[in-house]
């Protein structure tokens, strides 16, 4: 099946980016175009989602660029997994865009903000939709290049320092990704994800290449994805970069860009490499299981350790912070751990039902964290805008002077803590449910510890920032309507998602099925290309 709608979001974001670049002499027109573009992007994504239909059977649509058939040309693929990720990203992107049109100063907006924002969106969309592993690298670069500039946007001393760290780290990451991709191409003879999936599952039919190198190369690739997702031990760039970026950009980085790394892990390991079998491979100190989905079983413990470490490092880091943005940045390290924990369980599970549950739990938690954390970052931006500081000692009593803003912040907090009926409750519940289904049961105490830390640092933030006597600065602060309105709108969205959770759950399950249904993905993308035994080259 093919569909032109697959490229619609990509085109809308690209056209908007160029249009805002051309109209930067006309401030008003640029902002209007940018907002219209954000709305159009949401529309295009809605069109894609309605065509892919995440609530029905899992459909896969592919678009072959320039009509070059799959393993040879560049392919864009939309299935329930990418539709799910795109859907919540588009909502957050629009909210952050509206927020930034009021938050970022006029000069900054005119010079570069809007084009960069939309180019970042282009990169995110491309990463979600691409069906080609080298293309994934290119979209990552598009996304990162814009985010580098957005991190250094204010270009004060701490911003340049944070950006330098972020840039150097990601450049090294890109080089490592190139190494992995080159190695995979040389080993398997293809770059197309569907073709790759087909070949690693049955190497004998494609020239009988050795699958063993794929394990090591996939580990290289994994390090890069973990870096993008900010998983421990690759989390150290997160706090500085998130604190340096403007609030709506931090909201996008935490809510959407981080999820690209998570998406890549799900797509590449659960769809592409899942079929690889390593017979007769033994590594000193590491056990490589035999048989079907051996690679997943290999990554399960690794994912588990990284998720646990992220939860602990992020949680403990957040408890000790003295500023709101720092606390949120550390918290987002911990919350990514919560997204990856069910993935680890899904990877080790042998029962297909548990595997679906694990991936669905990760998706639901990703959606919840996307909404709640972007809300919190924007609320923190609104606080900064009103009060002029984010240090807890100077804050206090915001709930009296800014009740709506505080209410929105509170909804964000309890969504991440996991209070019913908000979306976070179901996310947490699913994570615990998945963690409880493993034989070892080690997941439960880790998740529980993380949950307690979450309550600890958020109640601290609430107590010190929002309760009590308003401080001098807070008394003289004035909140702006647009900023508060966006925060409240996101809070309402979180509540609605929680109440109408049935729909979210079905969409997440469809996404999980799409991620795990290798055969359908391969069949659709390759569209009946006969498996000619080409195989690796000399």
């Amino acid at each position, binding site marked *: 099946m093919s569909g032109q709608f697959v490229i619609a979001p990509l085109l809308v974001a690209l056209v908007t980016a160029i249009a805002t670049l051309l109209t930067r002499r006309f401030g008003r027109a640029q902002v209007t175009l940018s907002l219209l573009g954000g709305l159009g992007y949401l529309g295009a994504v809605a069109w894609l989602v309605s065509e892919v239909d995440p609530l029905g059977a899992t459909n896969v649509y592919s678009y072959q660029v320039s009509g070059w058939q799959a393993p040879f040309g560049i392919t864009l693929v939309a299935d329930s997994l990418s539709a799910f990720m795109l859907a919540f990203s588009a909502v957050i992107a629009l909210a952050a865009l509206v927020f930034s049109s009021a938050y970022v100063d006029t000069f900054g907006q005119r010079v570069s903000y809007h084009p960069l924002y939309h180019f970042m969106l282009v990169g995110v969309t491309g990463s979600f939709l691409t069906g080609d592993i*080298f293309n994934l*690298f*290119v979209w990552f*670069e598009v996304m990162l*290049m814009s985010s*580098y*500039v957005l991190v*250094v946007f204010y*270009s*004060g*001393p*701490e911003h*340049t*320092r944070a*950006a*330098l760290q972020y*840039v*150097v780290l990601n*450049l*090294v990451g*890109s*080089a490592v990704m*190139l*190494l992995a*991709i*080159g*190695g995979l*191409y*040389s080993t398997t003879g293809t*770059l197309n994800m569907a073709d790759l999936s087909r070949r690693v599952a049955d190497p004998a039919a494609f020239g009988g290449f050795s699958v063993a190198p794929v394990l090591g190369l996939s580990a290289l690739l994994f390090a890069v994805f973990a870096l993008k997702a900010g998983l421990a031990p690759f989390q150290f760039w997160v706090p500085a970069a998130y604190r340096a970026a403007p609030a709506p950009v931090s909201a996008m980085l935490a809510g959407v860009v981080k999820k690209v790394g998570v998406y890549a892990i799900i797509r590449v390991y659960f769809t592409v490499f899942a079929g690889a079998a390593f017979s007769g491979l033994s590594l000193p100190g590491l056990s490589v299981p035999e048989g079907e989905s051996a690679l997943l079983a290999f990554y399960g413990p690794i994912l588990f350790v990284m998720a646990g470490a992220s939860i602990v490092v992020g949680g403990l880091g957040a408890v000790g912070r003295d500023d709101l943005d720092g606390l949120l940045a550390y918290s987002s390290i911990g919350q990514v751990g919560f997204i990856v924990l069910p993935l680890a369980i899904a990877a080790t599970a042998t029962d297909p039902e548990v595997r679906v549950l694990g991936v669905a739990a990760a998706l639901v938690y990703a959606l919840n964290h996307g909404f709640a954390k972007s809300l919190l970052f924007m609320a923190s931006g609104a606080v900064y805008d009103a009060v002029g500081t984010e240090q807890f000692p100077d804050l206090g009593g915001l709930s009296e002077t800014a009740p709506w803003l505080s209410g929105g912040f509170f909804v964000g907090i309890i969504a991440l803590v996991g209070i019913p009926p908000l979306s976070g409750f179901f996310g947490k519940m699913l994570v615990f449910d998945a963690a409880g289904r493993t034989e070892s049961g080690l997941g439960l105490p880790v998740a529980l510890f993380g949950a307690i830390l979450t309550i600890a640092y958020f109640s601290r933030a609430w107590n010190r920032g929002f309760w009590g006597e308003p401080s001098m600065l807070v008394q003289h602060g004035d909140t702006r309507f647009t900023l508060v309105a966006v925060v409240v709108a996101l809070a309402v969205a979180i509540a609605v998602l929680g109440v109408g959770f049935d729909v979210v759950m079905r969409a997440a399950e469809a996404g999980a099925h799409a991620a795990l249904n290798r055969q359908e993905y391969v069949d659709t993308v390759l569209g009946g290309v006969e498996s000619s035994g080409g195989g690796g*080259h*000399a």
Partner: protein
Amino acid sequence: MTQFVLAGVLGVLFALGTFLVLRRDIVRVVWGVTIISQSANVYLVTMGGLSGSVPVLAHGGHGGGGHVTDPLVQALVLTAIVIGFGTTAFALVLTYRVYEEHGTIDLLELGEKA
């Protein structure tokens, strides 16, 4: 023979890049990153295999017969080089900004200010 030479050169390049990335001077760090990404490009070319003749020549039947070098890796490298140019330029501009803001390009001093 070419394979061994290239493998050696790649090893040296990666080692040099890593050495420079670990320096205190930001300009050297940027150099290191550039060298690493360029050696990744060279590595990418070698991954296409070195045997065979030039595809265009072989196509016309003049050159090395049926056996041709894989042209895809060249396309990949071209893309990677273009991206590398952009990121290197940005990293250099950023270095200049860091110097303007902090008055130093020594990473140790920069860290102490944090």
